[in-house]
């Protein structure tokens, strides 16, 4: 099996635009939720928006694409791949939720009223397919696909891109996820009763639900041969990706974490490591009662009761299709920096959960880490990352 290395990282979220500012937010645990400002809303749930999102050539109405492009360009820059080199097949695999649907209320209001509904929003949708749009703008020549697996989309996109590389479908892959704050999920999660009216507190006894966020997280993956042929080395590897579905319910996780456990065990086996080799788990940790209970119990079952884990959603909010990409990038940064951030928002142990996330910054002692994602529809993804001793 080919060794798939991580040669570039790009992130944008409420925690910061770019790796440098994000790293500082993770270190300090700064949380900046606030009311929705990107669209009018009567709902008062706090959200984690990206401040000052700027593009030289902003595509109107395509905020998710702007977010994705920002992270993709940073990741490619980090990998030394801008512009893309000739003769390399570069695949684009990105996950999203919002950008895969026509969620334009103005268009739909006009349609319902029988007035001529302008198709601008439909055109934007048709030109805003994340992978397709970035493939065109980057002139990338490998496969391109947009993954729409709800909240595990970003992690699944990274896993699929990894498979592309090991199968030889491309030499390099740009993979991750992106999503914007949008009125439809804000309304939908609100009526499901899983939005918190206060800053979220993943795994805390007093957690009251999730906060929506937005952003994009992207990894550049390639074979070690490809990287070394460019005169570079990598300090991060992506040894495995596990995926399994609960086959239980559309919105609730399996109470025994059947799919998550299967995904984790598959990933550990594929990476040829034991649970003891894993230093920490960057958990999905949304801050909802159900998710955190099931996820923590599963982590304890797979890794033992002393498992070190955290949720970064206390700093970014739940960024839906972006979450898996962002959290894979955060996991990579923690491995590289040798320090795991504290699980922001956590204060009090939940006796029902029995284990608790990292309450303070902690040194990384082992070389592997895992990032987990759970999704509506019952999807579960687990990415195993490893640091090496190579210098970049």
């Amino acid at each position, binding site marked *: 099996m080919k060794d798939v290395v991580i040669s570039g990282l790009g992130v944008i979220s409420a925690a910061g635009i770019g790796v440098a500012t994000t790293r500082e937010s993770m270190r300090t645990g700064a949380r900046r939720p606030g009311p929705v400002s990107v669209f009018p809303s009567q709902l008062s749930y706090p959200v984690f928006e990206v401040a000052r999102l700027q593009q030289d050539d902003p595509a109107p109405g395509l905020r998710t694409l702007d977010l994705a492009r920002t992270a993709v360009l940073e990741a490619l820059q980090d990998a030394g791949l801008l512009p893309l080199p000739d003769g390399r097949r570069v695949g684009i695999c990105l996950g999203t939720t919002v950008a895969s649907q026509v969620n334009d209320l103005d268009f739909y209001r006009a349609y319902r009223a*029988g007035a001529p*509904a302008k*198709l601008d929003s439909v055109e934007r949708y048709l030109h805003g397919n994340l*992978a397709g749009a970035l493939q065109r703008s980057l002139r990338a020549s490998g496969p391109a696909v947009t993954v729409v697996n709800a909240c595990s989309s970003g992690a699944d996109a990274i896993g699929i891109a990894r498979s*592309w590389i090991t199968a030889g*479908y491309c030499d390099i892959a740009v993979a991750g996820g992106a999503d914007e704050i949008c*009125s439809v999920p804000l309304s*939908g999660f609100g009526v499901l009763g899983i939005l918190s009216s206060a800053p979220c507190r993943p795994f805390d006894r007093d957690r009251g639900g999730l906060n929506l966020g937005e952003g994009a997280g992207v990894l550049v993956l390639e074979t070690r041969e490809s990287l070394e042929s460019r005169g570079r080395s990598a300090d991060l590897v992506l040894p495995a990706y596990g995926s399994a579905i609960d086959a239980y319910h559309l919105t609730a996780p399996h109470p025994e974490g059947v799919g998550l456990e299967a995904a984790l065990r598959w990933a550990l086996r594929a990476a040829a490591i034991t649970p003891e080799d894993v230093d920490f788990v960057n958990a999905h940790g949304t801050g909802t009662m159900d998710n955190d209970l099931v996820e923590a119990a599963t982590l304890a079952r797979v890794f033992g009761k002393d498992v070190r884990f955290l949720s970064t959603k206390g700093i970014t909010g739940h960024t839906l299709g972006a979450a898996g990409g962002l959290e894979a990038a955060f996991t990579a940064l923690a491995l590289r920096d040798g320090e795991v951030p504290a699980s922001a928002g956590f204060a009090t142990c939940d006796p029902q959960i029995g284990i608790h996330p990292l309450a303070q910054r902690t040194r990384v002692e082992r070389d592997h880490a895992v990032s987990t994602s759970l999704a509506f529809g019952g999807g579960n993804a687990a990415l195993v990352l490893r640091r090496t001793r190579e210098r970049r």
Partner: protein
Amino acid sequence: MNVAGIGIVFSRGRGLDALAAALREGWRAPTWRAVTSLPGAEMPVYAVDDALLRDRAILGQMRRADRFTKMAVLAAADAVVDAGLMVAPGSTDVGIVVASGLGSHATAFRFLDEMLEFGEAAPSPTLFSRSVQNAAASHIALHLGAHGPTTTLTQFHLSFQQALLVASAWLSEGRCSHVLVGAAEECGAVMEYVCRERIRLAPDGRIEPLRFGAAPEAVPGEGSVFFVLARDRASRCYGTLEVAPAPSLDDADLVLVDSDGLTEDETPYRAVARARAVAAYSPVYGSMMTGTAFHCAAALLMLRDRLRFAVPVTENPHRLTVSLVPEPSDPGRIECIRHGCGEQVGSVRISR
């Protein structure tokens, strides 16, 4: 990848026999439906009959699921039965890949209906959970009791080709022994309006897939087709499916063109003039971004039955070698190509 089973639901029925009968019969006029928001306007549609979606044995536990999901679950379930595949309880050995150009948009719009009617704090939560793009894949997994890797993909015109790539990678990695891969498209009221306003509809309800013109005409269709793909060749095998890195028109015994009027310009298809023989069957099931999946089913039927179905066209302006009546044929390799937007092209190779 070995094709061990096929399931299909489309405007002319359910199952491979229905597909074979439709391909033998050729073109049939579509239904003309009123366009909800355009008074007096009608448009041709190849719609799936609601009666087909009332299979209690399969859909009884998902009565509230939407049409998109029901079509996908039926096709997937039929493919599994056709393959004789037994999914052991708790098995992670069967993967699921669902491809769609436009997804379950009708449910997403119904959620917008409720947001507009009742306000953003009061829509149906059930409707929201059903509107997520991966709901169909989730229902398929629920029906089968399968816990393997499951993903839903969209890449407009090339969604199905990308799904096959994922399936191929999963099989070669040993992630699963079988992958249930398929496509689904739904033609809901809003999409009909969009089609009416945005694309050229065939005024006589007839797609002419061999015109290869700069202003092609479409007849929107809907349906779902699924394939059970196996790593190992089983006793039951229709043939093999592989995504080709680039179309290879010269080597194929037959080139299937998935031209259906949905792209703005079909002139790139003129390159198939050098192919030994050409066929196109979009007039049978309608225009769909994932039409290649339906063409793959047709190709596998031709391999199985050793015949070439007649091409249901009235025009062949580029004088391609086509069969206008069903003919015995034993093609070893069929290539199905679809052009997407711009320079995108996808190719699937179907072999015995």
